[in-house]
């Protein structure tokens, strides 16, 4: 038993220690910031994109990249990177403020969230995960206490019911947030002049014209086309290269 606990502790410590830190990329980040400050926005974009490609993601990096894209007039990528910053840090005030400004500027269309999504958005996926885990184990301890205890305390029964109810609600929240319109399939239209169509052909009838920065939910991919739920509650096909997933 002791060996198992020691092994678990070692694994957890290793996981945190091995988490990528930023070794020498701080200099590149500072250089990109300097380019931005000097008005060399395209160079700044290139610098930030290099950091993104190297996997050194942070909310501030995506936020700065969004700002740089905004300066070069690419509203679609600007909104995409603000969304990524908010996906990493839900309470990033600067990204939230700039996202509103750019959305207003680009007239981008937003997906409508379902009512469970709206209600569950006060917590993040990680928070709901922790709540679900704690509630589950607390409920399990209560059940074991009821099984092995000499007396069946009403308080323990109530606590176990409360714990399992909390677990179910938290699990439902995780499911809705993960699979909802703003979940893992959320993508942003980055191309210009993009139109969702009824079929996978440029000549097919148009369903909806999507300004850059518009939100879509990718349902499936077929070759160079993606089938997506659109902000007007319809569905349509659009070129795969014209939209990018928020979550990398």
């Amino acid at each position: 038993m002791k060996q198992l606990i020691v092994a678990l502790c070692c694994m957890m410590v290793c996981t945190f220690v091995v988490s990528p830190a930023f070794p020498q990329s701080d200099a590149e980040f500072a250089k990109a910031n300097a380019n931005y400050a000097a008005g060399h926005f395209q160079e700044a974009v290139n610098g930030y994109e290099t950091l993104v490609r190297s996997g050194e993601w942070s909310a501030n990096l995506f936020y700065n990249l969004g700002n740089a894209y905004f300066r070069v007039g690419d509203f679609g990528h600007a909104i995409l990177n603000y969304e990524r910053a908010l996906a990493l840090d839900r309470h990033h005030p600067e990204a939230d403020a700039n996202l509103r400004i750019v959305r207003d500027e680009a007239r981008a269309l937003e997906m409508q969230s379902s009512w469970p999504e709206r209600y569950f958005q006060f917590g993040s996926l990680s928070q709901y995960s922790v709540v679900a885990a704690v509630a589950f184990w607390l409920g399990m301890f209560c059940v074991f206490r009821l099984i092995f205890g000499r007396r069946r305390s009403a308080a323990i029964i109530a606590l176990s019911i409360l714990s399992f109810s909390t677990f179910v609600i938290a699990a439902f929240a995780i499911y809705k947030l993960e699979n909802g319109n703003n979940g893992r399939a959320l993508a942003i239209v980055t191309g210009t002049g993009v139109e969702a169509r009824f079929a996978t052909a440029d000549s097919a009838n148009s369903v909806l014209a999507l300004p850059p920065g518009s939100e879509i939910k990718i349902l499936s991919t077929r070759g160079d086309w993606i089938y997506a739920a659109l902000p007007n509650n319809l569905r349509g096909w659009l070129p795969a290269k014209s939209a990018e997933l928020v979550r990398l």
Partner: protein
Amino acid sequence: MYGVRASIPVFFLTLTAFGGANCVFADAPRVTAVLSNSEAAVGQTVQLQIKVTGDRAAQAPENIVIDGLEINRTGTEQHFEMNNFNVSSSVIYNYTILPLKSGTFKIPPQTVRIRSSSLRTPELTLNVADSPGRSSSSRSNRNLQPGDADKLVFAELIVPKKIAFVGETMPVEIRLGFDPRAHPKLVDGPEITGQGFTAQKLQQSQENLETLNGRSYDVVTFKTAVAAARAGKFEIGPVKAKAQVSLPRTPSTSRSRSRSPFDLFNLDDPFSDPFFADPFGQSERREIDVESEPATFEVKPLAANAPPSFSGAVGNFTMTTDAEPKNVQAGDPITVTSTISGRGNFDRVNAPVFEDERGWHKYPPSAKFKQDDDVGISGAKTFETVISPNEKKQALPLLAFSYFDPLKEKYVTLRSDAIPISVQGGAPIPPNAVASQPAATAPATVGAKPSPKPQDILYQLTERPPRAQSFTPLFACPIFWIAQLIPLAALLGFAGWKIRQAKIDNREARRIGALHQESTDLLRRLRRGEVSPQEYFSDASRAVRVKTALAKNVDPNAVDAEMAAATFRLDESSRAQLRRLFERSDELRYSGRPNGTGTISPENRREVLELIENLRV
């Protein structure tokens, strides 16, 4: 159950009433008239259909008389349609129009009598062109040479117009004729060859039996549309196709060849071959090429000075517009629906443009095309454009759509009517600015409000977190599930501890139960008094030890007189009595014989019993 049975007829009655109501409240009778093709050549038949929907008791005209057109009624069709319990019926009156001369013919509105009322069809226009190309091509193919298999088939390329404009879409018809006795099968094509024009996909429109030069042909008609990409003289075609036909294997020159009953005019019909008289004789399937004569036409360039809203549309169009909603707040979206209908190159028909977009934000439009014919020359293209007002407005901006009219040979600009709307909120409109006026008619400076400077974004951030962040949710990380092993281990440990405790508690309970049982047995034996003094005192001391062990939860063998006295808090006399009991028991156990008499007196037994029974905590 009775309720269910009763509800079934009610359900069907409701269903019937609902369906009946739908029938009763079906749409009022209406009439439409369409031509199968509004472009034709002399001698080329066109179908006219007058469709009456909503009433089967309609009476369409038997004869339509128009100079230059021979119009004959060919039949009547009745159609029934049921959709969601809504039954609709329609009657279609078919006419065949044979143009006798070229020109533009107007088919006037026809009166259709429906019971006591009458409806009128819309006026239709039929353009009939001379078709020398057609006649030459058809004749050249129909002057079939004796002994040539091609005489079994012919191909025609019919281009109704000889002069067109760049981008103008012209309907083109391809007719392939096959002698039905050769059991023809089209294996490839047809396809139009040529350069400098774009052609749409061929659509097979009809197949009928025609008699040409006294010979019957199965004629398959294909339709398409072509548009020239540049000005100049063009040659379109020839049309090429491949077909399989059955032919006699080897015509014998020595055999006398009787005339086929089909060869009425002695045209050296290959079916005069005896093979066709003997269908079980030898024949062979042969693949033959079918080719028409090319057609030529001249393409003229479009006029210069195209209006700004011209996007390349050539033809004849009309425009209707509408907008919803008409009462909005500033910033709310308004969907403007504009429909361009008519004939022309719809692939070049773009959304109408707003003539004055100041104070509005426009989104890219969506388009939907509904064609009325086989090749997409005629139809209606509907655009939906979402615009939102940035300020107070009283009307939508005017929409303009320009096209080139090949008949008038000039550009035509269609403008929508001003659609009044009500916009609440936002900045008030300047007094001189009239939103409904086109920009061209209003001075650029009058009422021009400087657009508000867009809000700027916030500053860059220079801090970075110490570690890279991940988009992977916590529940999808392995560490999350590994961490669950900790409460799992704790839970299992808790369960094991509880199980062990239960086992221990159980063993203790059994030991205590055994002591209680032993105490009861000992007291019973002491009360009976049938045992020797040695056994009696041994039992008595054992009973004291057991009672003490039960009271103090200790081993009975570890109990002595002092411990028992202390446990039960005995007074001095009882304590002395207890000591004597233990001494007597030891004496009898270890000496082997008692000091004194061999029996126990009743008084002595009673004292011992009272002492033991009074031992209570």
